[in-house]
């Protein structure tokens, strides 16, 4: 999905020593962050133009290697075949995927086996888990979602050769916000969201007795977590460098990244 950020309306006092165009594309998970950064960047540097598009992590990486774009957003690591040694990785955020249920359900812990059984439709009624005799409503993300990719891989054991599919009756949602909304409103629903979306309207359950917290994820006990990346071809220079610096700045990390994800500096892993 193309989302263009136009120009205009920038303050007169802006610094214009930085100029040029930055093209960004890739992961839809990173898209809102990249877009917000583009707005702030263009407001601060009025001689620049930042164009941000979605398309998914894979498409972004392909375009970066073809030098169509300057920055590839990705919600996954580079795959062995993709890295020829010239791509530079900028980790811009850390994300934990939490499994969430409606607070009415008296369920606080699920084993990995149970999670797989629920999401693949082998178990379809909460009474099998000591809950009410009601159908389990599974809520998942859309196919292009990096969050779904990571969840499928880690929680369901899906691989590109042998993909594992969620139960066909699962509700597909385009965002974390909508999943939280549906799970919060449906007494029998279960889903997954990025860590930043966990609040009182839903309950994050433990996975094999480990709760989804920053400490548990950073120390490797909770494995459904990943970094979000901005990849560049070689070291970033010029406006591309300044743009990434803005994304990594303490202020932006705190105000924007921290709203939905975890600031990179809070995670010491690697």
């Amino acid at each position, binding site marked *: *999905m193309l989302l263009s950020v136009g120009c205009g309306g920038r303050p007169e006092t802006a610094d214009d020593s930085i100029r040029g165009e930055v093209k960004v594309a890739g992961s839809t998970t990173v898209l809102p962050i990249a877009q917000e950064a583009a707005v702030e960047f263009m407001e601060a540097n009025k001689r620049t133009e930042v164009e941000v598009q*979605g398309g998914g992590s894979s498409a972004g990486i392909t375009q970066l290697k073809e030098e169509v774009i300057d920055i590839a957003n990705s919600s996954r690591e580079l795959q062995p075949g993709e890295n020829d040694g010239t791509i530079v990785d900028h980790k811009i955020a850390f994300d934990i995927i939490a499994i969430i249920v409606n607070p009415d359900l008296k369920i606080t812990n699920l084993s990995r086996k149970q999670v797989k059984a629920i999401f693949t439709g082998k178990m379809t009624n909460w009474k099998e888990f000591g809950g009410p005799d009601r159908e389990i409503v599974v809520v998942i993300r859309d*196919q292009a979602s990096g969050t779904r990719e990571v969840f499928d891989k880690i929680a369901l054991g899906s691989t590109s050769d042998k993909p594992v599919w969620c139960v066909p009756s*699962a*509700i597909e*949602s385009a965002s974390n916000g909508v999943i939280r909304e549906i799970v919060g409103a*449906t007494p029998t629903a279960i889903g997954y969201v990025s860590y930043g979306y966990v609040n009182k309207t839903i309950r994050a359950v433990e996975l094999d007795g480990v709760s989804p917290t920053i400490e548990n994820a950073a120390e490797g006990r909770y494995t459904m977590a990943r970094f979000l990346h901005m990849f560049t071809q070689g070291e970033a220079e010029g406006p591309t460098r300044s743009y990434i610096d803005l994304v990594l700045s303490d202020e932006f990390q705190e105000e924007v990244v921290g709203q939905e994800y975890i600031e990179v500096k809070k995670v010491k892993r690697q």
Partner: protein
Amino acid sequence: MRARGGEAVTGACFKGHAFADRENRVKVVMLACASVAILAILLIFLFIFRESLPSIRELGVKNLFFSTDWRPNVADPKAGHYGMLTFIWGTLLTTFGAMLISTPLGIGAAVFIDQVAPDSMARVVRRGIELLAGIPSVVIGWFGLILLVPAIARVTGTSGYGVAAASLVLVVMALPTITTLSAETLKSLPAELKEASVAMGATRWQTIYKVLLPSAREGLLIAVILGMGRAIGETMAVQMVIGNARAFAVSPFARTSTLTTRIVTDTGEASGIFRSALFAQALVLLLIAMVLIILIRVISRKREAA
């Protein structure tokens, strides 16, 4: 207005007939404008077909149109499965549910407007129906999402999303079409028909049931078919309440997708053969619409012949 027209006529008298050549050219331009409709239909067919061709070729008719196996692959489109039968069924099921309610409601409201209601009331209902037709589908979808879905969830203990919610939303979309066209048909019936019936001692209900509705049969059928067309083609309102699942729906409260909702949900992310499969779904919609149009043509020809 009349004065201006008169002036123009006198002005024209002196320069008129010298332009036989220009006359023909003008006619060609006007014909060209009228032919835009033909061109548009041809282009739509051409492009939708052209874009669906790769998926038809690669997957074959059976795997594409008659399979329920929908497992797309965004990263590697060729590795996915793109059977659309589930969504064809979803479209038929939601439309059927909608017609079940909107047909009696729409024709009933039309009879009310034409036969039962006092003039002022008839006008209120007619205006109301026109306003209903004007409500944008995203607004009706949002209404469905925040009111219908929770209500269905409460009553049935399901998630609330699904075929039933979609059908109810579609009632709102199809109702104005059915009511307006049915009322027009009833109005066009000769007045003698009703007078004769009443003169023979029939009550109002008998007149409506035994005389008016049977004589309006073809027109009412066309109204219902066009209402059906609205329901089949509706996209946003249905997408917001149907649950966007890929399961083959067997219960009225099952979550599924229709052709239109699958297209609008996935087109943004799809590429290659995945996208082509979505165009193939649009091709099916296109063919369904053509069948409806031809059906209407046949019916109205029959009506004219009768």
